[in-house]
C-alpha cells in the first residue's frame, strides 16, 4: 500500500515539484499552503511523513511543527523542513520544535527520496 506524504508550502511551484518527485517514487501526496491548512488536512486523514517550509503566512513552519507534536497521533510522524534558510540558529529552532531533519532549497529529487527513505520506518 502506498505511503502518504503531506507537503506544506505557500509556493505552488515547490508543492508541485515535491509532489512530482514523491508521486514518481510511489507516494500518495496531500498539499497544504500553510501550517493551519496542514493541520486541517491532518484532521481528515493520516499521513506517513510531513515536508514543510519554514516561512509561510497564517501559520509558519515552526508553529505548525509544535502543534503537530502536541497531537498524540502525529507525535512521532517524521517531519522534514524544506526551506531556503540555512542558518544554524534557525536549524536549532527547527530541531527544538520537533523537526526530524532539515533540507536547504533547492532540493535534489533523488536526495530527497533518499532522505525520506532514511527517516520513514
Amino acid at each position: 500500500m502506498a505511503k502518504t506524504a503531506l507537503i506544506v508550502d505557500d509556493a505552488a511551484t515547490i508543492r508541485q515539484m515535491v509532489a512530482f518527485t514523491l508521486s514518481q517514487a510511489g507516494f500518495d501526496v496531500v498539499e497544504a499552503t500553510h501550517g493551519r491548512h496542514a493541520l486541517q488536512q491532518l484532521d481528515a486523514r493520516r499521513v506517513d511523513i510531513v515536508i514543510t517550509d519554514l516561512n509561510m503566512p497564517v501559520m509558519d513552519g515552526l508553529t505548525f511543527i509544535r502543534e503537530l507534536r502536541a497531537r498524540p497521533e502525529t507525535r512521532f510522524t517524521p517531519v522534514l523542513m524544506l526551506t531556503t534558510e540555512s542558518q544554524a540558529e534557525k536549524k536549532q529552532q527547527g530541531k527544538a520544535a520537533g523537526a526530524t531533519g532539515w533540507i536547504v532549497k533547492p532540493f535534489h529529487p533523488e536526495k530527497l527520496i533518499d532522505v525520506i527513505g532514511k527517516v520513514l520506518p
Partner: protein
Amino acid sequence: MRWLRFLSGLLHAPGVYRSGIEAKAHAPILTVLRRQLGEAVSDVEQAVVTVCESFAGITQRARETVARAGALLGGAESDGKEGAGVEQLVVQARATFEHLLERMERGSELSLEVVRRMEELEASTREVSKAIAEIDAIAFRNKILSLNAKIEAVHVGELGAGFGVVADEISNQARRSTELTEQISAVVSTLRASVDQTTDRLRQFAVADRDRVAASRAEVKATLDALENAHWAMRAGLADTAERSEMLAAEIAHAVVGLQFQDRMSQRIGHVTEALEAMENALAVRGRGSIDQDRRRQEIAGRLESSYTMDAERAAAGSACVTAPESGGEVELF
C-alpha cells in the same frame, strides 16, 4: 531591472529630498513598481508551474509507453502476467505447429502402413489365384479320372454300374469345382485389379504427403524463427527505450532543481516590494521633518533585515559575510 535603477536614481537625485511636495509626487511610482514586481513574480510562478506540469506529463507518458510496449511483447520482464504477449504467442504457435506437424506425419505414416497392408493383400490374392489354379487342375484331373472310371465301368458291365454312377458324380463335382473356381478367379481378378490401382494411388499420395509435411515443417520453422528473431530485436529496442526513458527522468530531475530558482526569486522580490512599500510610506512622511525622517529610515532598515531568510540577502544588505557560495540541497538529520 529598470525600475530598481530608476528608484536608485530617484533616491540619490540631489534635489528630491529638498521638497516634501516633490517627494510626495513621486510616491505613487513606488506603488506601480511594487505592483509590477508582484505581477512579474506571478508570471514566473505560473510559467514554472506550467513547465513542471509538462515535465510530469512527459515522464508519465514515457513510463506508460515503456510499460505498454513491455506488456505487448510479454515475457517475464513485463508485468509478470501470463498470456497475450508476443513472446508467449510465439511459444504457443511453435507448440501448436509442432503438434499439427506431428499429426500430419502420423497421417503419412498411417498411409504408408495402409500401402504395406494393401501390398500384403495383393500378395495374398496372388496366393489365392495360385490355389484356385491348383483346384482347377485338381478338378480337371478329377474330370479325366471320372471319364476313365466311366470307360472302365462300361468294360466291367453290369457290376460296374454303381461305379459308373460314382464316376458321373465325380464328373459333376469336377464340373462344379471348375465353375466355382472360374467365379472365384473372376472375383479375385477384379479384387486384385482394384487393390493394385488403390495401392498405386495410395503409395503416390503417401510419398507426396510425406514430402509436403517435411517441406511444411521446414517452412514453419523458418517462419517462427524469423518471428522470434523479430521479437528479440523488438525487446532490445524496448530495453533501449527504457534506458532512454530513465535518462529523460534524470534530466527532468535536474531541471526540477534548476526551476526552484523561482521560489528563491519570489522570496527575494517579496522582500524588495516590502522595502519599497516602506520607502513609499517614508517618502509620504518626509514632509514632517528630518528627525522623523531619520528615525523612520532606521525603522525601515531594521524591519527589512529582520525579514531576510537567505544569507545572499543579508550579504547584499551588508549585514552578513558569505564565505561559500550557496549550493542548496544541504541535509541535516536531528
